[in-house]
């Protein structure tokens, strides 16, 4: 029985940070010494290669491995700076309809032979792309943002994961804006965890450095950057490893004069 953790990273809604989360967690886990592979199951619109800076190094994909036109080692793209991390694209955008749940299970079981973590970057939506990506998942991380559409779609995905028996399913709350939370103009962390009833694996604050790092193709967790998102992703990786790391508190992250004045006015008046 393999001890590999095969984790689906999914969200339902697009654009909430699945691929960014997969890339940063992959690097962070690899840096903690875990042999990690990130599998891009969103091959129609694949982007994980781009966020990892590996877009020019893809020769083969999982499809060629299953068709036995190449060996798994040839298809795995090793990260230069972080050799514990490898990328495997499920396919290329030209092959639209090849991946089935059976293919997914076959490729994942090959990966489980040589990796500690298999992170599967799931496509948006809850149709076939999701079902294929989820077929081999043992556990899942649902990424959402504190916005109504993202939370609603996350709820649908959690329902599907529950019926598939994927467990545990944990939550990453992305793009948190502490200032907006403090004036109750953004769903709070408790609001989201109450509604979705999932354990919180991590909070990631809105951070402009994420955009800079994707421009460069170098995930934030690769450097020693102390940016809030880098810290958050490193913390999530350590929690996955079983370390007990306290969650960040959005109310402590607030700074700036105006926020403090607002806070003061609210405590006096209410």
């Amino acid at each position: 029985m393999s001890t590999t953790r095969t984790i689906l990273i999914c969200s339902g809604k697009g654009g909430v940070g699945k691929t960014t989360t997969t890339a940063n967690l992959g690097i962070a886990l690899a840096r903690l010494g875990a042999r990690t592979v990130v599998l891009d199951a969103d091959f129609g619109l694949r982007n994980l290669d781009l966020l990892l800076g590996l877009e020019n190094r893809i020769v083969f994909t999982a499809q060629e491995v299953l068709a036995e036109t190449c060996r798994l080692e040839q298809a795995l793209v090793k990260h230069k700076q972080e050799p514990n991390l490898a990328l495997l694209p499920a396919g290329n955008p030209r092959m639209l309809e090849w991946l089935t749940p059976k293919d997914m299970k076959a490729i994942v079981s090959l990966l489980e032979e040589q990796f500690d973590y298999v992170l599967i970057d799931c496509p948006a939506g809850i149709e076939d792309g999701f079902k294929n990506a989820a077929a081999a998942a043992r556990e899942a991380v649902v990424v959402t943002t504190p916005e109504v559409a993202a939370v609603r779609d996350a709820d649908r995905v959690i329902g599907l994961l529950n019926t598939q028996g994927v467990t545990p399913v944990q939550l990453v709350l992305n793009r948190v804006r502490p200032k907006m939370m403090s004036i109750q103009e953004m769903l709070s962390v408790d609001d989201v965890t109450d509604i979705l009833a999932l354990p919180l694996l991590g909070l990631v604050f809105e951070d402009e450095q994420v955009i800079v790092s994707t421009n460069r193709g170098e995930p934030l967790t690769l450097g020693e950057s102390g940016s809030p998102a880098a810290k958050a992703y490193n913390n999530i990786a350590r929690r996955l490893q079983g370390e007990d790391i306290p969650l960040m508190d959005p109310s402590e992250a607030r700074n700036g004069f105006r926020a403090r004045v607002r806070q003061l006015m609210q405590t006096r008046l209410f």
Partner: protein
Amino acid sequence: MTVKDFIDKLLGRQISSASTAKQRLQLVLAHDRSDLNPELLAQMRREILEVVARYVEIDVEEGDVSLETEDRMTALVANLPIRRSIQQTPEGGTL
């Protein structure tokens, strides 16, 4: 947030958008999870009231049938104030 919005909020004239968001989500998720649209729910409500009204006299105006959700469990909650019971014979006729 404009100054006017801020003052409105301080004076309690406007509820925060976060609590509006939470309420709207709770309602829409109760419907999503049960796969019942508001029209079907209204029909079910009517039919439940009809059945209950055969046995007890209920206050239709005060009655409420709604979906409530807690910890991913959705429950159908009916709150139907009873005016008095209607005594029935085993054959089903009213005494």
